[in-house]
Structure formats: structure tokens, C-alpha cells
């Protein structure tokens, strides 16, 4: 049987200010799947993603990517992340951003330049190829983030709110590209606030609240289980329940 693309056991994170963002989270994402992670702000989605990508110091637990510890070089090479906030190198142009990223991920100059040109075309950034990142519009930055995440042909792509703040046309364009990527066998983990986006794209959805997975199934499975007409109803039932449970736990004296 193939290794899971992502296997998380008992992942915990308590920030220095005492906030518990993740409390022993378990999650398994099968290889080749399109997996959605839904939850309100502060639920722990970005913390979870950051931990997988070695951008955070977890306080406990284990993360494996295709069977390898996530901190290993091979595992790092297999992950591509597009973070929620545009975090582009202000000194580099669009083309340089992509070429340098390929270099950081072990690609040769020729490979990296070839892929950079491909990505520039795919994401319609040709006219801006020699423009530095701070001069790009919000939508162009978002496309460049996605192009950078995919440049080194990762097997696990993590997209943290990739369509937040983009117009409808670009959102559908990004959906088309992400779908095509998934059809080629790339495992995709998507966090989003847009429930219709999760329903349209994801094979399986996990709802996260208070640093825990409170429900997980296909969109139809979730609706059946929670006797809901829409995913929004499921979301409200599960996330509200999770919040109430967390609030109740906090009220119990130690």
C-alpha cells in the first residue's frame, strides 16, 4: 500500500504567549488526494500547515511526508507551499523569484529557468516577468505565489487560502489549474474560507476547530452525517459544536 502523502500524529503547538493552537492533532491525507481543510480564523489551519512545511516549531507530535520525517531534505523537496499572505522577495523580479526558488530546491539553472518560463506562461505573468514583486498587483502576487509553490514540481502542494481576495475570473482560472495539477497525481491540501470552493474542488474535507479535527468526510458524506442540506450547515453545526466544547473545557476548573 502506498504511503500517505501526509501523516500527522499528536501534533501540538503552544505559542510562547500560552495560546494552544493545536492540541494533539491527528491527520492522514492519502497520496494523490485533493484534501480540504476548513475552519474559522484561529482554528489552527495555518499553524498546521506551517508545521508541515517546517515554518513553525511544534511543541509535540510527529509529521511524515510520504513516509519521511517532514524535516528531512527529501520530504522538504516534495512539498510546495503557497502561503496566505504574499511573501515575495522584494529584490527579485518575477522571473528571478521563480529561478531562485528552483535553485533553493536543488534544481539546476537550466531546469529552473525552463520551469520558470513555463510557470510564467501558465500563470499569465509574461508581461510582468522583469518586474519586481512589490510592483505587482494583488492578483499578480497571488499568481506568482502559486507559480513559486509549483515550480519545483512538488508531490504535495499546500495552498493556504489561495483565492483569498482575488476576483472571480482569477479564482476560476486558479481552480482550473489546481484541478489539472491534481489530475496529474499531485496531492493537494487546500485551506479555504469559501465553502463552495471546498465543495467544488475537494474529494475529502476536514473541519478544524480549536486545534482539533472535528469532522472529516466527503462533502456529501458530511452532509448526510450531519443531516444538512449544505456544507455551510455542516460547518456551522460542527464548528459551533467544537467551539462550545472547547469553551466548556475551559470552564472546568483544573
Amino acid at each position, binding site marked *: 500500500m502506498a504511503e500517505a502523502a501526509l501523516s500527522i500524529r499528536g501534533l501540538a503547538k503552544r505559542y510562547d504567549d500560552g495560546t494552544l493552537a493545536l492540541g494533539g492533532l491527528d491527520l492522514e491525507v492519502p497520496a494523490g488526494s485533493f484534501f480540504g481543510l476548513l475552519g474559522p480564523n484561529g482554528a489552527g489551519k495555518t499553524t498546521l500547515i506551517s508545521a508541515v512545511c517546517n515554518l513553525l516549531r511544534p511543541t509535540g507530535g510527529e509529521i511524515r511526508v510520504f513516509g519521511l520525517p517532514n524535516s528531512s531534505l527529501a520530504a522538504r523537496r516534495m512539498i510546495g507551499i503557497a502561503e496566505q499572505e504574499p511573501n515575495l*522577495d522584494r529584490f527579485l523580479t518575477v522571473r528571478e523569484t521563480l529561478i*531562485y526558488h528552483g535553485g533553493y530546491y536543488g534544481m539546476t539553472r537550466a531546469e529552473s529557468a525552463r520551469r520558470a518560463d513555463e510557470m510564467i506562461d501558465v500563470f499569465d505573468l509574461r508581461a510582468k516577468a522583469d518586474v519586481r514583486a512589490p510592483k505587482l498587483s494583488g492578483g499578480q502576487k497571488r499568481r506568482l505565489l502559486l507559480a513559486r509553490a509549483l515550480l519545483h514540481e512538488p508531490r504535495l502542494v499546500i495552498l493556504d487560502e489561495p483565492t483569498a481576495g482575488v476576483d472571480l475570473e482569477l479564482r476560476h482560472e486558479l481552480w482550473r489549474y489546481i484541478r489539472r495539477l491534481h489530475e496529474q497525481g499531485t496531492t493537494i491540501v487546500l485551506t479555504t474560507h469559501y465553502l463552495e470552493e471546498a465543495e467544488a474542488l475537494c474529494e475529502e474535507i476536514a473541519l478544524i476547530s480549536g486545534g482539533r479535527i472535528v469532522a472529516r468526510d466527503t462533502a456529501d458524506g458530511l452532509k448526510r452525517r450531519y443531516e444538512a442540506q449544505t456544507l455551510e450547515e455542516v460547518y456551522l453545526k460542527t464548528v459551533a459544536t467544537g467551539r462550545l466544547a472547547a469553551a466548556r473545557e475551559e470552564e472546568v476548573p483544573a
Partner: protein
Amino acid sequence: MTGRAYAEQPFEAPEPWRGFLWLSLRECHRVLRLWTQTTLAPIVSSLLFIIVFGLSLGGRISEIHGYPYEIFIVPGLIAMAMAQAVYSNNASTIFQARNDRYIDDVLAAPMYAWQMNLGFNVGGYFRALMIGGALTALAAPLTGAPIERPLYLLVVVPLLLVGFGALGTIVGIYAHTFDHIQFVNNIVILPLTFLGGVFYSVENLGAPWEEASHANPLFYVVSALRYGFLADADVSPWLSAAVLAVIASVLVVWAQYLFSTGRRLKP
């Protein structure tokens, strides 16, 4: 190939050296892109010191340790320019990368922590060497400053670069604002370098200021470079090299600890 087959195929381990080289290249690229600020300005200001203090006022000052004043001040000015350059470069590049979060692209990449640390430092070394090389090339014909101990310089200049580079990295990681970076430069490095004998021999100070100067780490930096250029210094060249080595070792271990643990770099 079907999607599932692709997902299950074995994956080749990456070549981490390539990532390190690209990060080093990126840091040099940054220095060159900002060349008026990173390279030209420090060369011009150090040259002005040589011209104003050395050539204009130097004639009124008697020789120090057997050297005309304009020659005596050259090594200290080069030491000061290089120390400030490597410190400022590394502190600002790390701070900007943290502040804009594009450091995440490096922290997530398949590189070892020591390669990330060293890669971020390479731009500072490159910048300081360009400044030191240019100042040496310009000061030699202007003042006639010799290079008496080139092999000694080959030992102490890397120690200076590594030590002050690591200091820049540490400050860049801890800094909350650009003011913190400037504070260390303007309130610590610059005054201590001036007090370390750039413009005078500490022997001329007399007790207790001469002894007090020996507690200033920058005094050994200035002395080391002065010995490399003039074969003359206020303290033993080996003591200067040893102090530089100890400072560099402590700061490198500290900087590496921050990269290895992710403290202050990752939440």
C-alpha cells in the same frame, strides 16, 4: 502515467549544495543590486577619512610607530569599513527577509540549517571584501600604505568577516525594527572602533585609558589589520588573532543555534 502512479513513484533526494549556492548567489545579487548603498557609499566615506585626516591634516601630526599618519590610519579605516559592511549587510538582509516573510521560502527549502546560516552570510562577506579590496587598491597609491604581512591578513580578515557577519545575523534575527540594527552599528561598533585606535596608537593614551583599550574587542580587530598591513601593532599579532577567533567562534555558535532550533525565526 496515471495520477495515482505518479503519486506513488519513488522520489530522488535533492542536492542541498545547490540550494546553498543559490542562496549565496541571491545574497550577492542583493549587494550588487543596491551597489550605491552597499558598496560605493562606504568606499567614499572611508576615502574621505583618508583624504581629510590623512592627507590634509596628517602633515601636522608626527609619525606614529615610524609611519606617516596617512599610512598609519589606513588599516584601521579598512577594518572599520569591512566590519561595518559585513555586520550591516547581514543584519539588514535577515531582518528584511523576516519582516517580509520571504525567509519562509528558504526555511522551507531542502537545505541544512548551517547552509541557510552560511548562505545568508555570503553576501556580507562579498560586500566587505569588495570594500576592503577597493580601499586597499585606492589607498595604496594615494598614501603608499604597504601590505607587509599578506599571509597574516589571509587569516585575520576571514575571522573578522565571520565574527561580524555572525553578529549581524544574530542582531537581524532579534531585531524588532531597523532602529535596533542601526543602534548596534552606531552605538556599539562605530564608537568602539574609533576607541580601538583607528586614528591613534593606544600607547599614546597613557594609564588607565591604554589598559582600558585592551578590554575593547574592536581594538584587536584594528591591531590585527594594522599588523597585516604595517607589520606593527599595539599588541602581539597572535593575541589579536586569538581574540578574533574566540569572538568569531562564540558568535557563530550563537547564530547557528538560532538557525538549528528556529528560535526567533519561526513562531
